[in-house]
């Protein structure tokens, strides 16, 4: 097979031609790509100092997943007309409180919204 790259040197890897595009947009691209990076599932750190936060992140991600799925289900039923006004009100209040609680927990563990987003492959992002 014909060699893909001739004599690699470090300067060639950094060579601008590796990336091509509208140079004016580079700064914006960096900004957006970094946001995507944050949203990707990260490995957990076994370092005890970080372990708690890593596990908290995992648990909260699962809890948030459930909350969002349930909320979507409630909305579907509401739009489908199979809920009484009173039920809608109770569900709405319950989900409102859950969202507030999640916000609290995120603050306690120092996590941002993006930290809890995960990519579900063919289903897209969690939220």
């Amino acid at each position, binding site marked *: 097979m014909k060699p893909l790259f001739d004599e690699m040197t470090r300067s060639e890897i*950094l060579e601008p031609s590796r990336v091509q595009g509208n*140079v004016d947009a580079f700064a914006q691209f960096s900004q957006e*790509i*970094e946001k995507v990076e944050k949203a990707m599932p990260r490995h957990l*750190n076994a370092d005890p100092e970080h372990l708690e936060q890593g596990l908290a992140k*995992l648990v909260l991600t699962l809890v948030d997943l459930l909350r969002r799925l349930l909320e979507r289900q409630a909305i579907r039923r509401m739009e489908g007309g199979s809920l009484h006004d009173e039920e809608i009100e109770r569900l709405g209040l319950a989900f409102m409180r859950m969202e507030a609680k999640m916000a609290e927990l995120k603050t306690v563990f120092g996590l941002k919204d993006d930290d809890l987003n995960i990519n*579900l492959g063919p289903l897209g992002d969690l939220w």
Partner: protein
Amino acid sequence: MATDLTIRHRDVVLLELLDRVLDKGVVVAGDLTISVADVDLIYLGLRVLLCSVETMKKGGYTGVFSEGRQGDR
């Protein structure tokens, strides 16, 4: 400015590289996937790393090597 452009250019190249070498490629056995309804939700690397792009850019990436410090208990 030329220097400004070089920095921005380099940032973008580095981000593209990070996106690949840190998140993709062959991983070693010992990983655990949690599946719900046949959708793989969470991927836990027992080879545990925590990294953010900022950390990497500042040169503070803590890789698996650092765990060796704890090995002498």
